[in-house]
């Protein structure tokens, strides 16, 4: 018998080698108690959280929590059904209304996760004979959406406008075209030149989908994302987003002004063939989304945190993923996985949690320590974090 698991042997070996060095398993962290959006007890130690996507710190907002508790009391723990059958309760409709208000768009469709939103929309709208042109550093959910559909998939070099245009130009006359971009690329925390890219996509008659998962709530004058910031949101056909980052719960969505958009509810399989979100989840999301429309102070503080951490780490001698802070993600580039894991562990001992990101999730096979800031990190916490990085950097031999 061929062991179907033998294909995983290289990964099993890589993991064994890493753990054999004696480091704590970077992928086995458990938070025993969560004290606030920025602090938790991890392995018995009070730890500052700098590796969550809780950008706007909404998870413990009293209004958000109250909305969830009320929905739990009023509607029960779950829907036990698909959105198109018995799984649409009034809170599901309400959160879609909240999204339409937030983005100023005509249609909003909520999925059970952000992953499913990309999977569903991309695989459904681009069919046989159509072309998907996408950035090579796209998120796994975008790639999986491509793989699940029947369209021709054509990647281009990250953020390379010329490479994108060449591919659009070569697509046969008459074929349907979908350009897929992200506002913020979450590994390095860099943003896309959406304005220029979308103008070119339009010139070639392509529809445009932008994933704004890592920008919602704090990029753009109304927190609608990078496309809003760059003044090109009106030229985006489909915005994909998530509730599991700034919104502070779980779920995914697509908003659009396409006049035929509502048909997606019947033809999009990852929407139809899964249970809808629990009512408490969509109620927390609706409250949080509406609060994010009036969160200018939080937004300003998050940007202040991002600038302070970026400068502090760069001045300490770390190599960062971007020359300037472009989002709430600051990526610290590690020389290799082993030293990256050592540094990750040294930080954990200091009382700081960051994400250890390694290939294949990372571009160019890099090992990264990914720091994502929260609007509720205090200025003091950010200074503490910089000190922790300096000490851990010396311990791990990075500095």
């Amino acid at each position, binding site marked *: 018998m061929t062991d179907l698991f033998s294909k995983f042997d290289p990964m099993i070996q890589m993991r064994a080698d890493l753990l054999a060095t004696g480091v704590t398993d970077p992928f086995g962290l458990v938070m025993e108690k969560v004290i606030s959006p920025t602090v938790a007890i991890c392995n018995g130690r009070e730890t500052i959280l700098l590796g969550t996507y809780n950008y706007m710190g909404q998870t413990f907002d009293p209004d958000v929590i109250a909305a969830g508790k009320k929905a739990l009391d009023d509607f029960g723990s779950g829907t036990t059904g698909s959105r198109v059958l018995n799984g649409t309760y009034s809170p599901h409709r309400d959160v879609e209304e909240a999204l339409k208000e937030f983005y100023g768009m005509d249609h909003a469709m909520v999925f059970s996760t952000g992953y499913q939103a990309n999977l569903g929309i991309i695989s459904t709208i681009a069919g046989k004979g159509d072309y998907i042109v996408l950035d090579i550093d796209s998120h796994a959910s975008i790639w999986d959406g491509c793989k699940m559909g029947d369209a*021709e998939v054509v*990647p281009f070099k990250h953020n390379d406008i010329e490479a994108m245009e060449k591919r659009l130009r*070569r697509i046969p006359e008459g074929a349907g075209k979908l350009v897929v971009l992200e506002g913020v690329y979450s590994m390095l925390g860099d943003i896309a030149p959406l304005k220029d890219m979308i103008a070119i996509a339009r010139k070639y008659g392509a529809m445009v989908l932008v994933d704004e998962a890592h920008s919602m709530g704090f990029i753009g004058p109304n927190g609608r994302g990078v496309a809003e910031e760059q003044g090109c949101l009106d030229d985006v056909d489909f915005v994909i987003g998530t509730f599991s980052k700034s919104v502070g719960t779980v779920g995914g969505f697509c908003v659009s002004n396409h006049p035929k958009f509502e048909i997606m509810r019947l033809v999009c399989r990852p929407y139809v063939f899964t249970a809808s979100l629990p009512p408490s989840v969509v109620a927390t999301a609706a409250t949080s989304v509406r609060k994010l429309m009036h969160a200018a102070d939080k937004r300003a503080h998050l940007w202040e945190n991002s600038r302070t951490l970026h400068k502090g780490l760069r001045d300490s001698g770390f190599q960062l993923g971007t020359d300037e802070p472009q989002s709430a993600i600051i990526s610290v580039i590690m020389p290799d996985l082993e030293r990256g894991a050592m540094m990750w562990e040294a930080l954990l001992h200091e009382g700081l949690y960051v994400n250890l990101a390694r290939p294949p999730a990372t571009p160019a*096979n890099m090992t990264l320590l990914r720091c994502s800031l929260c609007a509720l990190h205090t200025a003091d916490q950010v200074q503490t974090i910089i000190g922790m990085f300096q000490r851990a950097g010396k311990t791990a031999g990075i500095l």
Partner: protein
Amino acid sequence: MDRAATAEKIAALIAPFNKKDIAVTDATSFAGDLEFDSLTVMDFVAAIEDEFDIIISMNAQAEIETYGQLVDAVVKLQG
């Protein structure tokens, strides 16, 4: 462009990526013999696409394992 001329151009484009100077035949595989990783594949495919002004989609790439198969695919894509 005929097969021989296409093959010659592709061979020239492989050269800068052929770090170990492997002798390339129709049966030479990109992943196995030439040890192309995903980053090399992206750069190499872009070079071929630019040279012949064609698109080799991921779907088409999945069917191409060897130099010979690539030459055949490029001949076909040029129409």
